[in-house]
């Protein structure tokens, strides 16, 4: 009981406030989960706003969503799902103590995260060029901006292009759609960036054998966070890209 002094190099370190390693690990996991509950409510409010306006202006939302490239969205879903699998493997290897394999998995996750952001940039870029970013230059159902070419669209391989749809619906409500789209995907992107920072930090700490990382728990926490990011996207994809008529 009284030997709560940290023992370096002899199994995981127990911080002074904890009795034993079990307590420490559980506390971390409980803390992470209560933080994830917070995140659920954070995105929850946005999902509520989405539901409300989608229910109100379904026609326009359908029209507006046809401007989004579902193939790019699908690719992004795939990338994120794959990264999630990799994180699951990373946690698996961390638990088994196979540090090298763990690092490889985390590296692949990191690549996926960057890939996600690159794909997202192509989507956002095209939206900017078509004046679909909902600020004062927003323009919808206006042939001039609708027809305009965008480098971000042209640069895509043919398999990822979608046929151009007419911009249908009330331009104001369409702007509402894009406000919600950019807020939700933007915040999700911000979470991806935070995830990238967390994963990078984790990899560096593992690499330099930092005393901060003596067991698998940090990997598990980052993994929980990354799975949550994936989870949000799992819902964003059908809600924004696959709206039925």
């Amino acid at each position, binding site marked *: *009981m009284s030997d709560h002094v940290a023992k370096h190099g002899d199994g995981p370190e127990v911080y002074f406030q904890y*009795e*034993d390693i*079990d307590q420490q*690990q*559980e506390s971390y*996991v*409980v803390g992470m*989960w*209560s933080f*994830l*509950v917070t995140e*659920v*409510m954070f995105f*929850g*409010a946005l*999902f*509520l706003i989405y*539901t*409300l306006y989608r*229910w*109100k202006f*379904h026609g326009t939302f359908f029209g507006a969503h046809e401007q989004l490239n*579902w193939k790019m969205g*699908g690719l992004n*879903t*795939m990338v994120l*799902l*794959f990264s*999630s*699998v990799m*994180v*699951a*493997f990373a*946690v*698996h290897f961390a*638990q088994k103590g196979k540090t090298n394999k763990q690092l490889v998995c985390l590296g692949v996750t990191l690549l996926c995260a960057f890939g996600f952001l690159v794909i997202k940039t192509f989507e956002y870029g095209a939206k900017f060029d078509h004046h679909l970013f909902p*600020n*004062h*230059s927003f*323009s919808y159902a206006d042939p001039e901006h609708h027809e305009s070419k965008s480098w971000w669209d042209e640069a895509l391989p043919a398999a990822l292009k979608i046929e151009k749809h007419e911009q249908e619906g009330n331009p*104001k409500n369409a702007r509402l759609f894009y406000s919600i789209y950019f807020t939700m995907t933007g915040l999700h992107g911000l979470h991806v960036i935070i995830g990238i920072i967390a994963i990078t930090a984790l990899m560096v700490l593992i690499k330099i054998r930092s005393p901060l990382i003596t067991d*698998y728990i940090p990997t*598990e926490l980052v*993994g*929980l966070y990354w*799975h*949550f990011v*994936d*989870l949000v996207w*799992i*819902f964003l*994809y*059908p*809600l924004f*890209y*696959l*709206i*039925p*008529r």
Partner: protein
Amino acid sequence: MADHGHDHSEMTKGGAHANHILSERTILIVAGGLFFLMALTIGAAIYMPEPFKGWTIPMQCLALAIAVAKACLVVYYYMGVKFGTRLIKIFAYGGFVWFFMLFIMMIDYTTRPMEPVPGWEKQTSSALPRDTVKNPE
């Protein structure tokens, strides 16, 4: 507390050990499930034959059901809720249940006419200039 140890009541009641290791096989099976469901959701939305494709609500429910299935796979296996302690389960379920608390708001919107007045636009509602492009005057 005869063992002089810490109070592990939440943990022991869960009946499982905290640091459960997911086997590689499970990870791969779940991954397969996830990718299959993803293909399914795209197929259901894009390549659905015509009479069904027009059914808004069933199609939306289908898409959401698939999303929920995917979410369950991730939450149960990858996030380890299935093997977690009772406390973790409470947090995981509680968060998602509480999310629906927000939907009390929908009572309001379904029981009042919320139709905005058509053509209403008076003041720009932002500090930045908006709607200045198309001014016939």
